[in-house]
């Protein structure tokens, strides 16, 4: 078991950098970050609470205009007063539901698709579904990095993908998957 705090890690895929950092995803400067949203797009607590408080009420107001999303779906909203310009709200699988990996893959693909459509160059992802929604960090890391890698190997306008995590177990899982990818 390692008890030391790790340095940030990054890998290069084609012209694009994938960087792993420890930070608060709602408080970083990017074109867009991904929020692991609920079906009804209510921001709720956790990162959603931070978006509502720091970003102001305009974000939820904009979301209220959308229809509920199925698992795997993703839409884009403004980010109010946050440092980011936009937020990609992506509804991933949760709580040991069936076919976690397949659904997470679809969610990632749709989130990246929205980013390309909007021309975002720097985007940030949390450890999708890890933590509150109970997906194991290692599973989240495997699926996310696999989809990101395939995506960046094709034609893309994205220049930097940041994976922004909070916890050491999440950091370690992503770091080891990234190291293997390299």
């Amino acid at each position, binding site marked *: 078991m390692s*008890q030391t705090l790790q340095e940030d890690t990054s890998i290069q895929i084609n012209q694009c950098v994938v960087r792993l950092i420890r930070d608060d995803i709602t408080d970083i400067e990017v074109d867009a970050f991904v929020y692991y949203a609920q079906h009804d797009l209510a921001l709720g607590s*956790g990162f959603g*609470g931070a978006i509502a*408080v720091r970003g102001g009420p305009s*974000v939820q107001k904009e979301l209220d205009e959308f229809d509920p999303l199925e698992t795997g779906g993703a839409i884009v909203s403004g980010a109010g007063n946050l440092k980011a310009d936009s937020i990609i709200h992506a509804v991933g699988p949760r709580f040991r539901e069936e076919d976690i990996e397949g659904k997470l893959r679809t969610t990632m693909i749709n989130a990246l698709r929205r980013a390309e459509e909007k021309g975002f160059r720097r985007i940030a992802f949390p450890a999708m579904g890890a933590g509150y929604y109970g997906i194991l960090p290692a599973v989240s890391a495997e699926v996310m990095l696999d989809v990101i890698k395939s995506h960046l190997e094709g034609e893309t306008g994205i220049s930097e993908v940041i994976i922004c995590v909070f916890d050491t177990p999440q950091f370690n899982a992503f770091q080891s998957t990234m190291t293997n990818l390299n």
Partner: protein
Amino acid sequence: MSEKKQRSHKAEMVIERLGQKLNRQVVGSLAACVHCGMCTESCHYVLANPGDPTYAPAYKADKVRKLFKRHYDWTGRVFPWWVKAGSVFTDEELEELKDTVFGKCTNCRRCTLNCPMGVDFATFNRMTRGLLVSVGIQPEGVAVVSKDQWEIGNQMGVLKEDYLDTLEWMEEELQDELEDPGVTIPVDASDCDVLYAINPREVKYDPRSIADAAKIFHAAGEKWTMPSEGWDQTNFGLFSGDDALGGSVARRLYEKVIELNAGKLVISECGHGYRSTRCEGSNWAGFDVPFEMESSVLTMLRYIKEGRIKVDRSRNTQLVTFHDSCNNARSCGLFEEPRELLNLVCENFQEMYPNRAENYCCTGGGGAMSMSEYTPQRLKSGVIKADQLKETGAEVVVTSCHNCVDGLSDVIKHYEIDMEVTQLVNLVANALVIEEKVVVPVEEVPVAVTADEVPVAAALEALPLSGRVIVVADDEPDQVEFLATVLEDNGATVHRAGTGDEALELARREKPDLLTLDLHMPGRDVGEVFEMLREDPELEDLKICVITGRPELRRLIYDRSVRRPEGYLDKPVDEANLMLNVRKILELAHEEG
């Protein structure tokens, strides 16, 4: 049709995970019960609901035990009818199980004490909570709090900037109080002897406790710091049964102590925080903790015994009693230290009966305060605590736990008991004798006051709330009068409202600087009133302070997608706390500073 085909995916997952969670302690407890019934009368839910067998610990335990027998014990597989083995099939059955394990037990462990077979029901009740949480079946409040702690790092979703701002505010208050600009609340200082971690309730609803602790560290000459991150010593994983959350939260705090190279972690008064951080966290996190951890109760006691602080118990003259938090006392053995400290800082102490390991739960244990759907049955079970409190005849009940402060306050209000709730840190700070600095007097030059310089007007001008307009909204006339009088005495112009609609109308007409808002008033839903106030473009600058005796209603406000209130106070409110918060909200503290 086979059993497997009929079972829902969630039920399937719960049964599968049960197998992974079985360890020697859990299996022992699941297998050992002989249904003797000796635990029955230990439970405050049973005592408050005579004749309702569904509250009996053994009855509640059987709901989980039957699963174990059916799926993991050979007797149940061979003779299911004999050992009452059974399974779960539908999501509705899981919901019913949720209402038992979250709504009918606070995991207080009092029944454990009386079981001759050593059955620890609370342990497998917690395990069952964890099984349900893993498939997303949980009370809404549990979901909200868990997500906050996973993603923001503390149970109340306090953002870093708000936490740091509160520390700065308390530092300024302390400097004013002690007339000493050298008093500080250090943040992220390295190589200190003490790192002090707190409960987010202190930041959000009770910042005075932070200032009181800082005052004590200052008086003791302690080399101490608070961390800018990883500062939450509470742990909702203990309540929700989610060991991954428990490990993650504990680890953040441990890592911060190591990063700042602090000698010791001191945990502010909080029963479940102490148990989680000190006793359970390292197991959940799989982390070897290389430093000492201590409850602030022990720290304060040590300071007095070592002569590092001086206290004068004649400053706390009221008759006080002590409520043992279940986690501190029954689970962690902190019995005598708080009493020793109490007797050093208070003149009149009266025991509550039963006490120590036998004490009854405050009703707020196991995260119950966050589960508003179970509030009526929680308050009903509070009759046992209410009787205990009344029998002491005390004016103040002291406890070493923020959860208990909320639980007791709710019981006191519901059963209309004339009693205040406080913590040891507040009493120690009040009894603290701080040597006055020697001030060299500056000769005063008398200034002549002419007849037309009206002293009354000058005094009014100097009042802290002069020129401020405030609307006080509350349906209890006594409360309105109290708040209005304090605010008027401090120079504010106050308008009184008794319903949400009146509050709206007055706010729109008078354009006040501040509105104090009770969460439970007749007429229009207060959550809706709050949202309307927030959405009115003419009231953009209006500050709102929620003042409530119903903490479970916080969700009415905090779940809305509008700007949150600038302040929050729990009833009963005293004058000093009201003014402290109003000045902070109106940013007078900063202006004056």
